[in-house]
């Protein structure tokens, strides 16, 4: 009956692992909420960093993330369409597909260094556009992957039916196939947005940070994540508190977008 004991032990350990995992989640979320909510005041939202608030940082982070999305979505979706609808299983298609997949796990700090060399050094100043490009570079492979996979789920009969009615390939792709995959593709975009809005490393030496409210992407640009990094290392209590407030708000935003994305696809299933 040693087998039964061993079985029990392993299953118990596995359950404990799961509880540990959940435990960490709750530990982090609870401490974050506790510290974060305690540090939030009205001025947190109305003031800019220079005055102890995060208004300009929220606006800045969102602005860069949105601009990155505007760049990455057309590129990523079109690329995904090419791979799945025109690619025809050629070698080139497999290579691009695989490389894009690998890029989704590439170290984000290296991308920051790359964009620095390309867009900061030649212009002599940190600038918001460099941050936007760095974020876009991270988003594109993710969107390519999700678009590719979602289009693959569309049954081939739907394409055939469209062609059988006299649709051109482009019409069938845009009006039928993409429409059928609409929910999945949109969720992929949403989730990639949630991923990059929380990124810090690609922004450190591209858009850097800005204490003041600014919408000028040609100069240093305010960032919520970079600010948290800086604030956490300052010795004074006020900075520490602001870092917690910012962390809480950032996490709330990211988790909210994630939950929305999952909720939408759950209904699709």
């Amino acid at each position: 009956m040693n087998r039964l004991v061993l079985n029990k032990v392993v299953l118990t350990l596995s359950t404990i692992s799961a509880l540990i995992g959940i435990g960490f989640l709750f530990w982090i979320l609870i401490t974050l909420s506790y510290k974060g909510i305690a540090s939030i005041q009205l001025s947190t939202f109305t003031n800019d960093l220079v005055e102890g608030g995060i208004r300009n940082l929220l606006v800045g982070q969102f602005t860069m993330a949105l601009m990155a999305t505007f760049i990455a979505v057309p590129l990523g979706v079109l690329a995904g369409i090419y791979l799945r609808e025109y690619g025809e299983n050629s070698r080139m298609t497999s290579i691009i597909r695989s490389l894009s997949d690998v890029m989704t796990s590439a170290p984000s700090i290296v991308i920051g260094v790359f964009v620095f060399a390309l867009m900061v050094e030649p212009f002599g100043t940190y600038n918001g556009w460099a941050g936007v490009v760095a974020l876009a570079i991270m988003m594109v492979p993710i969107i390519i992957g999700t678009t590719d996979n979602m289009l693959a789920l569309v049954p081939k009969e739907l394409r055939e039916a469209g062609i059988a009615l006299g649709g051109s390939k482009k019409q069938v792709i845009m009006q039928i196939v993409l429409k059928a995959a609409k929910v999945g593709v949109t969720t992929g975009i949403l989730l990639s947005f949630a991923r990059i809005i929380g990124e810090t490393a690609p922004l450190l030496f591209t858009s850097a940070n800005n204490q003041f409210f600014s919408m000028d992407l040609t100069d240093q640009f305010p960032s919520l994540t970079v600010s948290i990094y800086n604030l956490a290392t300052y010795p004074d209590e006020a900075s520490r508190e602001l870092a917690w407030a910012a962390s809480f708000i950032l996490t709330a935003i990211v988790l909210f977008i994630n939950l929305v994305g999952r909720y939408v696809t759950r209904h699709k299933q």
Partner: protein
Amino acid sequence: MEKQDLKAVMDVKDLFFTYPGAPEPTLKKNNLTIYKNKITALIGPSGCGKSTLLRAMNRIHDLYPGAQYEGKIDLLNPETDKMENLLDLQKEDELIGLRQRVGMIFQKPTPFPMSIYDNVAYGLKLSGLKNKSELDGRVEKALKDAAIWKEAKDRLKESALGLSGGQQQRLCIARSVALKPEILLFDEPTSALDPISTGAIEELITELKKDITVAIVTHNMQQASRLSDYTTFMYLGDIIEFDETEKIFVNPSVKLTEEYITGRFG
């Protein structure tokens, strides 16, 4: 059967077809004539090539590059009354034109993710029809011809995905019929449906042949003998026998046909 009212609208001549990457042709020297306003059935055991042959008739194989055709498929041009080889068509707009004349209904109902109205109007809009009242008229007629107007008329703007399987299939038929094709190809249209829906569709097809020529692939022999005027029996890529349905089922000329009909294989 009176021979005078027989007019050939499609003539398959010595057709060979090879799938991309296949070592051998799936269709071997197929010869077949489709007659106007008649229902022609293609029957045979799994893998005999009946769907492959049907799908060559609207060149839908071309979706998957690398397919090879040999021989001819002549299609009657109603304006010039001459036969033109549809295998010669190369350009995308020529193929689009072909498919507007030779429509196809699939085994699995394929409603597009849009409203019922938009589904039926889809092919019409593709062909350039923009006038709203004309579209409305064509959509209504198509839905009536497909015997689904009553069920659909109060739900035109609702998603087509809310219809039942049998209704969806009739919607697909309406969609194709809206284009006023000369020939409609049915690829096992009822095998995914329940018996009642199957009956409704069979009735519909019989009605449709008044205006449209029909070719239907079916693995259900009873269906073939109920519906069709002409039957083609295929086996392993060859056309074994092609004749009037009555003859095939009552007194086939080829032994293999007889064995299939009487259930000795397949």
